[in-house]
Structures are given as structure tokens and as C-alpha cells.
């Protein structure tokens, strides 16, 4: 039943175009929140509940508010016309970029097929994916394979990500030169 996926794709595309074309930054932020909603449903449909949850928590709460605070601290340019004029040279460049990428399309595996190399057909008999799916519960006693990979198999990677988030927090405080909680 891919009717959901197709209509979601249309919705996401519409909101992305609207985000790009709105002249008023506040409206662009509001439309970007709608884009995030569509993306979260698409992730859910593609069987990634953990990712959809992250997108829901971040997209509904944090992104919008950080963007809002930024324009509240700086400026919101007054706009007479609703939409921006389309920048034709940029459209040509971007169109060429998308066309070059689109030539790859026939060579990609269809969405949802198990022929893809990630599933270990052909030369690769056991890929990490196959191992995780088959052995994750026996080896880590975690029902959620995503958590098992996150905290156990790829724990070192997660440590790096956590430190990057930590460093980003410090960077913000340094850039704004401020002891926020003093």
C-alpha cells in the first residue's frame, strides 16, 4: 500500500518548496515545522519508529523554538510580497545537480527489496545488519535492536556523538561569550 508514501512525498515536497520560497522568515519557520511533521510520518511508514520519535521530539520542540529565539534576538525583515523572486541562475545550477543525481536512479535498488547488499545477498553472506537482526536479543538481552546497536555494538560511535553534542553546547556558550547560568 504505497498510496500513503506517494501522497506523503507530495506533501513533503510542497512544504519544502514553500519553505524555500517564503520571503517572511517567520512563515518559513512555521512551514518548516509542517515539513518536519511530514518527514516524521514518512520515517514511521518506512518502519523506523526510533528515528520518527527523535524527529518528533526535536522537530516539534527544539528546532522551531531555537529558530524563533534567533529571529527574536536579531531581526525579522518586513516583507511586502509573500514569496521571493525565483533566482534563475541558482535554479539552473541546482537543476543540473538534481539531474546528474537522477541519472543514478535506475541503478539503485527498489525501495523495500531484500536484494540490496545490506541484506547480505551474493558475495556478502553475513552483513552486520543480518547479524544484528538475528543475534541482538541473544547477545544483549535488549528487545529493541536499535538500542542494542546504539549502546552496545556501536557504543564507541555513540560516545563520539555524545561528545560532539557536548562540544556544540560549549561552542554556543563560547560564541555568545556568556555564562548563561551565572
Amino acid at each position, binding site marked *: 500500500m504505497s498510496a500513503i508514501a506517494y501522497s506523503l512525498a507530495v506533501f513533503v515536497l510542497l512544504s519544502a518548496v514553500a519553505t524555500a520560497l517564503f520571503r517572511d522568515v517567520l512563515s518559513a519557520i512555521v512551514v518548516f515545522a509542517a515539513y518536519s511533521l511530514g518527514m516524521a510520518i514518512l520515517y514511521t511508514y518506512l518502519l523506523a*519508529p*526510533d528515528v520518527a*520519535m*527523535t524527529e518528533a*521530539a*526535536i522537530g516539534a*520542540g*527544539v528546532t522551531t*523554538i*531555537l529558530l524563533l*529565539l*534567533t529571529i527574536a*534576538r536579531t531581526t525579522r525583515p518586513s516583507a511586502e510580497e509573500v514569496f521571493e523572486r525565483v533566482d534563475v541562475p541558482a535554479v539552473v545550477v541546482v537543476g543540473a545537480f538534481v539531474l546528474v543525481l537522477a541519472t543514478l536512479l535506475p541503478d539503485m535498488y527498489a525501495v523495500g527489496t531484500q536484494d540490496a547488499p545490506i541484506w547480505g545477498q551474493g558475495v556478502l553472506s553475513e552483513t552486520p545488519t543480518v547479524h544484528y537482526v538475528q543475534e541482538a536479543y541473544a*547477545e*544483549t*538481552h*535488549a*528487545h*529493541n535492536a*536499535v*538500542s*542494542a546497536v*546504539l*549502546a*552496545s555494538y556501536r*557504543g*564507541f560511535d*555513540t*560516545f563520539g556523538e*555524545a*561528545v560532539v*553534542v*557536548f562540544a*556544540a*553546547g560549549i561552542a*554556543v*556558550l563560547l*560564541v*555568545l*561569550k*556568556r*555564562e*548563561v*547560568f*551565572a
Partner: protein
Amino acid sequence: MSDADSYGDTYTESQVIMTAVKIIAPFTMTYGLFLTFHGTDTPGGSFQGGTIVGVTVLMLAFAFGIESTRRWIRQSMIVGLVTGGVVIFAGTGVATMALGGGFLEYEAFVDRFGISHYWGMEAVEVGGVALIVSGIIVTLFFATAAGFTPVGDDADHHEMGVGNDD
């Protein structure tokens, strides 16, 4: 009063928002904690749970004034949360190394103490990532809300004076 003044000066109380947040905040807090602690069995986990706990604080800040919430949350608390998270995460890894395994190789716990692999993961998820993420979300929010005031400005001195009261 310039544009760059802090929000505390222009905060307006809204009965609707305060009531709504009072009702919803306990639920979001509980749900964030649920996701954090239950992440190994159901979808969710420390990244999501930590974010939702952080968002709860943002919600309170919007309802009750950003300045007063910032004063209510002490600096030591946030710094403790974030650095504590990094230390717990790294400490778990170093502990496994001290017990003869690799970095974050929880088999070492199983061999030495007989506790399940599962608890090593819980320590990293709850003690490490959740603390870091929730602390950083709150930090990012308050830092962006405070904005940038050039050094030596009057507003800066005023705020420092406020900060020294508690």
C-alpha cells in the same frame, strides 16, 4: 530600553499558557523518563527521552518567564548534568577496560560480577546519553534566548547584578 534587553523585562503572564503547561508538564516529564528508562525494550531511548525532558524545561520557561526559570535552574545543576553524563559514559568504558575487556565491552561485567550485559547498556543510555542530551538542550535554549550583549554594556552589568542575588 533597547531591543537587546532581556526577556525578563517584557514578560507578560498568560493564564491560559500557564494552566496548559501546568497540566501537561508532568506528563511530558514522566513520558521522557519512561522513554529513557524503557528504551531497550520499546522504541525510544535516551536520545529521545533526554530531548523530551529538556523540552519540558523549555515549556516551563515559556510559561513562567525565561529569566526566572534561568535563575531557578542553577548553573551547577546543568554543568553537573552534562559533564556528569560525559564522565559516566567514559567511566563505563574505562571500567570495562580496567576489568580486562575492550572499551565498552560489557562482557567484562558479565565475567567479573555476573551482572547482565543489559545493565552496562542501561548505564550508558541513562547515565550517559540522556544526561548529556537533556542538559545540552536546556543550555542551547537559554544561551540562544540570552543572545549576545557586547562586553561593557550596561545591560550586561545589570544582569550580572541579578545573577549575584542568589
